[in-house]
């Protein structure tokens, strides 16, 4: 299913999809949208990418984190080392990848991790109520507005959990279907 137009377009479209899905997620409390719909929109972006480029490519592009680093020298101060590592990982990634002394470590984000994170978030949002003596899932709201995202509160956290879980589940299904 490798059509050149779709393959090229999807690369550009993915950020838009993601931004739109997050937007849908957060506006969902007052307008049509929400975690389920947002999650599906976000997932569809990746599904299309998988469809055109294959699952391996999708994983390599979006679901792998590369960390670069070198072992700490014995007499080097800890904070300095941490700052160096940050600089290496944030600003100088391209260069570091080819540097001889630098080793890199890859973390593959399994879609199961995303599912688990989503479930954890959703469940934790309910615990907040429990901790303050209210029933499980009691809602708490902040008193201020954040421009695009709206009013923060535990239900929003819950919706975020739903969002992540839906993305994870759809990704998992897609990868299973297209792999092998």
């Amino acid at each position, binding site marked *: *299913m490798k059509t050149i137009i779709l393959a090229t377009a999807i690369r550009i479209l993915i950020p838009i999809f993601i931004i739109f899905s997050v937007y849908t997620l957060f506006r969902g409390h007052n307008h049509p949208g929400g975690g389920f719909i947002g999650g599906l929109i976000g997932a569809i972006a990746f599904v299309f990418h998988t469809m055109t480029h294959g699952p391996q490519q999708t994983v390599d592009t979006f679901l792998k984190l590369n960390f670069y680093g070198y072992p700490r020298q014995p007499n080097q101060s800890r904070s300095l080392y941490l700052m160096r590592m940050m600089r290496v990982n944030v600003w100088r990634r391209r260069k570091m990848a080819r540097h001889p002394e630098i080793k890199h470590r890859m973390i593959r984000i399994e879609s199961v991790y995303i599912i688990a994170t989503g479930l954890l978030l959703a469940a934790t949002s309910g615990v907040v109520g429990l901790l303050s003596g209210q029933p499980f899932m009691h809602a708490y709201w902040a008193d201020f507005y954040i421009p695009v995202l709206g009013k923060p509160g535990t239900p929003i956290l819950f919706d975020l959990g739903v969002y992540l879980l839906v993305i994870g589940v759809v990704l998992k299904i897609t990868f299973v279907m297209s792999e092998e």
Partner: protein
Amino acid sequence: MFLAILAGFLLAFAAPLLYRWLGKWVYVPMALLPFSIFIYLLTLAPAVLAGNNLGELHAWAPSLNINLHFFLDGLSLLFALLITGFGTLIMLYAGGYLKGHPLLGRFYLYLALFMTAMLGLVLAGNIISIFIFWELTSISSYLLIGFGHDKESSRNSALQALLVTGLGGLALMGGLILVGMAGETYTLSELLDRGDMVTNHALYLPALVLVLLGAFTKSAQFPFHFWLPNAMAAPTPVSAYLHSATMVKAGVYLLARLTPVMGGTNEWQYTLMVVGGITTVLGALLATQHTDLKAILAYTTISALGLLVTMTGIGTAPALEAMVVFLLAHALYKGTLFLVAGNVDHATGTRELTQLEGLSGSMRYTAIAALLAGMSMAGLLPFFGFIGKELLYEATLQESPFRWMLFAVSFFSGMVFVAVAIALGYGIFWRRSASPTPLQHADKALLYLPPVLLACTGLVFGLLPGFFVTPLLQRAAEGMLGVEQVFELALWHGFNLVLGLSLLTVLLGYVVYHFSNRLLSYANRFNRLYLFGPANLYQMGLKGFLKGATKITAFIQNGYLRSYIAAIITAHIALVVLSLWRNGPRLELVNRLPELGQLRMYEVVLLLMIVPALIFLFKSRSRLTSIAIMGIIGYSVALFYILFGAPDVAATQLLIETLTVVIFVLILHKLPAFTYLSHASERYKYVLLSLAFGAMMTYVILIVKQYPLDSQLKAYYGESSYLLGQGRNIVNVILVDFRALDTLGEIVVLAVAAIGILAMLKLRMQKGDKS
């Protein structure tokens, strides 16, 4: 009390671990637990003996009025002390008896589990918790009987015990619920005051039948007695503890406990007396027909249980007094004799009465214990068993129309008890013998100490009946009678009729012992009778049941998905049609025809998309086409949602439909190609069924929609969504706030589906099928 139960369960499940750490010393902590509970109960005893009932309440399911309620009065205290005191000795004994057994840890687990369950049963202050602990004892008993699970007979016996007591437990549950309904409470302390209310209730008779079924199966009453001798397949500590002293007495405990609630009526009295009487005689008779030590003991136990039930049935003050005294006495001597039998079996390797002789020389302490217990069982003078027997005779001789019947029953069993006591306490140990049975190993302290201790207790109680025992038993009898009761236990009542009868019993018992060989030779003549016995009926019933189940399963579960679904749908249609036909409203379509005029253009267009799409779906022979058609149908449905004010649902439907199509495309080449498989002849059946189902659903919707929906939920969510939930999208607020817990459950389902898919993938990798 709650803590005691909790500690019991915790220790039970820690037992295998403890065994791994401590090895053979595992019996030390295991015996310490019942011992400390025993001490704890003793500290509570003064309060109980002063006439107070102790209670303890923990909320469990408050909305159903079910609490974890503990209740301690004289009756429960008697049983609890018996369970923990005897439990301590058994734990020690098991350490010696099963020393070196690889599964000792597991054995202790079961045993401690049982002990805790039994303790919970007698301490429970709520009839629902009584039932739960009751079932726990059945289950742990099953595990214990089947401990030697490598033998088939052992497994069968365990299953038999479980089935019989389990069926009884089922009946008991129904009975207890009925009792609770009749008394309008499940709390024991309240129920005890509502005896009249229960006995006069319309549900009394069914409740009585069910409760008695439960009690009779547990306490091995005729005709359910057959499981008990088979349960002797268990290791001896289990037989001694469960099947003579505690578990089988759970039924008696239940009857005693419910005497103030359900007792006193004619039905109660006659049933208990008749069943108890038959059991007593039958147990005694069968005891003379066996030569296996444990079998003999099992049958005399059945006989004793029958006596206890009979006494409960008589229900007069002397009878109940006799019952509690005999209960304690029996537990003491029968437990001892079981342990003795276990020792003999362990040391010589046989339990056959005819092969054992002259063991007093080689097993001195065991022999002493056996002698003491035997004398108590025979009802000889300084022993507690003597008091028990005296009271039994006295109680049966009370003024009543059946006094001679009842007396004859107890006299007969007393005679057999004497014979058995002589055979076990004297015959195999002390009778002079030229060739004593050789031992495989010497007597061990851990094995002979518990029986000796128990037997001595029987002697001490007999010599000092006024000390501690009398007040305890008095309170126990009070718990059944419901009124203050004073009785004096004394060893010596003077020369009277009862003493004379006691002497006569002993004499006749000796005669029975003397001619026991001849009695045994008659045993074979009864063989034909056994064919009609309950044990055989049970076997036949079980076989028939299994056969029937196999047939039905083979018929229902034929392996064809179609027939399952067809059966489900047919049943569904039948039920709906039946209920609509009986009292369903009539459909009035004609009045509603004008509504057709309100149709909008785009609605018609959508309709015209779906129906032809379905037709194409059936015509299509290409997988890709059918997927595309599915997409069309899905999108059309999504448009419906938009038209009727559900943008969120519509968006979800659109996205899901897209995803479905994409996923199908991804996987298409791995799925089987279209082929026609069904036979034309069979197809019409399914077409008809499908049409009927569709028609039924249509009809249901039409009927439902004739009536206006008065949705308070809609109004509530409409009003409070913004004010309480701070959101304007009501659907979303319901999802993430009002009903967030439901949504949490739903996303868990999603996660599980994903994990299931993952699992299937992993499975494939391991097996390495052809790909």
